[in-house]
């Protein structure tokens, strides 16, 4: 005979169990629609293996376990899967979760299934996987997958197997009636568990308020060595840790599991389900559920298919909705209110309680704590609920943890005993959630900090690298400058070198800046002349890169042709252009190479310029003939015009994009325009004097520049508004056409930029119209 111990505290609420024990278990029948949540257990939700429209048979697996701590779901009857969607599930939050909805066909057709006739002959792992595949999860209320409990304890020897038939919570009689009616199946399930765990002793704990169940179980357990232990009724003896303490005197350590003290605990309903699964091959598709409370005309226990809506059960129990104050799933102590009667019965649903106002009045308003200590007296875990209440109110999480808040089993005994009606358990639940949240926030904050610091370090490193590169470039520029000083002390040449180095430094990334620098240099009258070596180097580099580009372009073209791409034409043009460029570069390079040092080739303007500059510097400027000069200036005008067009183009794009450099481009355009005008003026000055003898060429560039500037001013004054406007319109038209072409291309290829292009096209058209209007006005004026 086992020695019974007592647990600390506990309460004796009215039992209210007799109402639902008058009738035997009755099958609830097959509702028209079953709602099966994918998560009816603790752990990862199951994953559906059927799809909408599939016909499923009774017992067919419809969702499989995902992960170790998980359980599959089976179809409770035959029918059609009509939806897999979120539905309101039985949960205190009243929130929705994914469910499989089955419309039953009423035929209740079983899938092929077969039990194991002699489980002792089967490998234990096979047996455990059978239990796992049957989707059995703790049926006492927590819903922990049973197979995990059975396979987890291999490393620790289990001395005691305990079956929990306590059912200490008021109103609930599902286990009681199961033990009365199906004691044999429970004992058979217990035998399977014994075979799996091989404990030294097997105990079934039942409270002494269930004498009929005890008698039935004793009769069934006769001669098996399983001991039926009855002990005094007290709430909450049915808690796993409390029952272990009552039956064995061992206490499960704080934060530990029963297996830490060599014990495995299972609910008797789970044992019966294991028997059905092993001996008959039937998965967990139904359970016994109590429907009770005074708002139910006929309280009783039902064998309910999982997924049956609560409303369906209430309809069978003469439920009076107007009397019912609130619908509770579970018992009055630990259950939660259901907001919706459409929620289904799940694996853990042991009771549906529909009380009247008189039966379960709403709690009176809470009053101040009088520090009576009743809560501490009734706490089954020997905590200090009153202290925890104060700490919870003051958000003192450290103190709460010091007072072992997480050992609270939320049984509600303290709230029940509190003379001030303080909802203590609610405080503890909320504080537990707060502490967990704070821990998660802490972890997240740590991770954010790490990421932030890593980012800062990366940014600093990049900045340092940039700085180092900048310094290196500056050094190189200085070295070049020193060389230039050595070679030639003329001030303008130094400046040209600086300009060049700066242009190069910033110009690597930005050709526009380089152009500006070049333009500035040109304005200063010290056009940056390349030496022959530099030019050759540059050309060779250009040649190499162009060759590479050509190869790449050809490859792309080949690929495009292979894929029969739309872009073939574009690629072909690109290849042609690149090869043309290549040829030009090659030619230039060849010419440079073939030209001798002494004789300046007449067809190479750069070399000619060099020769001229050198000659000028040595003070023996050869007097240019008028013809030569005209030619030179004409050539210059042509190239400047080209540059001007390019600069205007760039300015337009910059403006369209709202670029910062628009101002710089604008300055460049103005300057180029000025220069062009100056050149034209010079040409105009030369042309009429062709016949007269050559005037002595002024060898002072400053004086020349002044002269040019004056001429430019004169010419720009001479240029009519109308001419300007016409030119403007022409360029705008060209741009509009170009943009329209681009837009078409972008639209065809479904580019993201199409929209941007369209906007800029619209803008350009607006401009064009405005310009045309201006021109028309000018013409009218002239006329």
């Amino acid at each position: 005979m086992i020695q019974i111990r007592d647990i600390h505290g506990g309460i004796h609420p009215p039992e209210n169990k007799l109402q639902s024990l008058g009738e035997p278990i009755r099958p609830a029948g097959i509702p028209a629609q079953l709602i099966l949540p994918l998560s009816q257990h603790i752990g990862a939700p199951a994953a559906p293996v059927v799809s909408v429209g599939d016909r499923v048979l009774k017992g067919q697996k419809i969702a499989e376990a995902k992960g170790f701590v998980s359980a599959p779901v089976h179809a409770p009857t035959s029918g059609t899967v009509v939806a897999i969607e979120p539905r309101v599930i039985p949960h205190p939050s009243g929130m929705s979760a994914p469910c499989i909805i089955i419309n039953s066909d009423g035929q209740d057709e079983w899938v092929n299934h077969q039990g194991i006739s002699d489980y002792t002959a089967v490998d234990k792992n096979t047996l455990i996987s059978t239990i796992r595949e049957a989707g059995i999860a703790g049926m006492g209320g927590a819903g922990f997958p049973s197979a995990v409990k059975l396979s987890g304890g291999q490393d620790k020897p289990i001395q005691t197997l305990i079956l929990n038939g306590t059912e200490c919570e008021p109103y609930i009689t599902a286990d009681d009636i199961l033990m009365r009616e199906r004691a044999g199946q429970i004992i058979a399930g217990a035998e399977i568990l014994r075979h799996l765990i091989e404990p030294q002793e097997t105990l079934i704990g039942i409270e002494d308020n269930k004498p009929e169940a005890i008698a039935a179980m004793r009769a069934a357990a006769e001669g098996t060595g399983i001991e039926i232990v009855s002990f005094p009724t007290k709430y909450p003896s049915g808690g796993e840790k409390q029952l272990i303490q009552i039956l064995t005197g061992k206490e499960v350590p704080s934060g530990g599991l029963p297996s830490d003290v060599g014990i495995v605990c299972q609910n008797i309903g789970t044992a019966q389900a294991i028997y059905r699964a092993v001996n008959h091959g039937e998965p967990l598709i139904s359970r016994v559920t109590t429907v009770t409370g005074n708002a139910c005309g006929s309280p009783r226990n039902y064998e309910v298919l999982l997924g049956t809506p609560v409303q369906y059960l209430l309809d069978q129990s003469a439920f009076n909705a107007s009397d019912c104050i609130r619908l509770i799933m579970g018992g009055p102590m630990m259950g939660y209110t259901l907001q919706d009667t459409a929620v289904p019965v799940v694996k853990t649903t042991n009771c549906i309680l529909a009380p009247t106002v008189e039966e379960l009045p709403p709690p009176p308003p809470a009053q101040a704590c009088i520090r009576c200590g009743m809560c501490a007296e009734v706490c089954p875990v020997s905590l200090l609920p009153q202290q925890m209440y104060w700490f919870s109110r003051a958000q003192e999480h450290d103190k709460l943890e010091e007072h072992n808040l997480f050992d609270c089993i939320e049984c509600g005994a303290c709230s029940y005993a509190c003379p001030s009606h303080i909802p203590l358990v609610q405080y503890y639940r909320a504080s537990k959630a707060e502490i967990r949240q704070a821990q998660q926030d802490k972890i997240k904050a740590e991770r954010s900090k790490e990421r932030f610091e890593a980012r800062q370090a990366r940014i600093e490193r990049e900045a340092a690298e940039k700085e180092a590169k900048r310094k290196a470039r500056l050094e190189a520029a200085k070295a070049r400058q020193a060389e230039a000083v050595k070679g030639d002390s003329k001030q303008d040449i130094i400046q040209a070198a600086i300009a060049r180095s700066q242009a190069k430094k910033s110009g690597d990334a930005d050709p526009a800046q380089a152009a500006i620098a070049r333009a500035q240099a040109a304005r200063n009258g010290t056009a940056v002349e390349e030496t022959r070596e530099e030019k050759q180097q540059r050309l060779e580099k250009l040649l190499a890169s162009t060759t590479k580009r050509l190869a790449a372009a050809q490859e792309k073209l080949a690929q495009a042709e292979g894929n029969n791409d739309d872009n073939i034409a574009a690629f072909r043009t690109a290849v042609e252009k690149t090869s043309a460029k290549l040829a030009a570069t090659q030619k230039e390079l060849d010419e440079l190479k073939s030209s001798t040092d002494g004789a300046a080739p007449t067809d190479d303007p750069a070399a000619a310029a060099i020769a001229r500059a050198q000659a000028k510097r040595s003070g023996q400027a050869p007097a240019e003939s008028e013809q030569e000069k005209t030619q030179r200036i004409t050539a210059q005008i042509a190239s400047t015009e080209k540059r001007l067009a390019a600069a205007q183009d760039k300015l337009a794009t910059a403006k369209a994009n709202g670029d910062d450099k628009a101002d710089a481009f604008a300055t460049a355009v103005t300057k180029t325009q000025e220069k062009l005008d100056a050149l034209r003026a010079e040409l105009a000055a030369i042309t009429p004097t062709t016949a007269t003898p050559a005037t002595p060429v002024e060898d002072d560039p400053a004086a020349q520049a002044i002269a040019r500037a004056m001429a430019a001013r004169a010419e720009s004054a001479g240029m009519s508004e109308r001419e300007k406007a016409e030119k403007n319109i022409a360029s705008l038209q060209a741009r509009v056409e170009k943009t329209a072409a681009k837009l078409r291309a972008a639209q065809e290829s479904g580019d993201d930029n199409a929209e941007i292009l369209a906007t800029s096209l619209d803008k350009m058209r607006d401009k064009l119209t405005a310009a045309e209007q201006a021109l028309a006005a000018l013409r009218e004026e002239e006329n």
Partner: protein
Amino acid sequence: MIELISQHPFAAAVLALVSLGLVFGALLGFASVKFKTEGDPIADQVESLLPQTQCGQCGYPGCRPYAEAIANGDDINKCPPGGEATIAALADLLGVEAKPLDAVEESVPSVAYIREDECIGCTKCIQACPVDAILGSAKHMHTVIASECTGCDLCVEPCPVDCIEMRPIETTLQTWHWDKPAATEDIIASDRPSAKPSAAA
């Protein structure tokens, strides 16, 4: 010796005190060099209490700079993501009075969301994100790594097409929890309503 002291009590006392002062001064000086603490321990402790959203709503470029500022005497009520809880913790740590939050309201925990079909791939939000929680490259769609997002909303402002919004973090079944009862229980017995509570209550 004793005679000398008794003959010059004043000089002896001064001498004794001066020599004591020198000894302890040297001891303290040595200790301050030998046991010098690295870094700023108060700033470290303060930083560990800050929520690390790196949002800059306090006026400092990140949580660490604000922690240093607090250690140097700045107000502790400038952290909207931390809210009252952080202020209380900081007040507790520093032994100062908790002040009301220096912001309109506590910021709701939220996560940045990029409406991906509107994103033009400008990478501006990627550059703004203090914790590298936005993924993407130039001219390609960007997206937020929600689990790493601190909800600092620094990415919202730089977006040229306004395709980023801050969405409050939704409660899921996993994150749902019981609320604390409203603290209205401090009434006395005579406050109890005389009528019986109705069925609807």
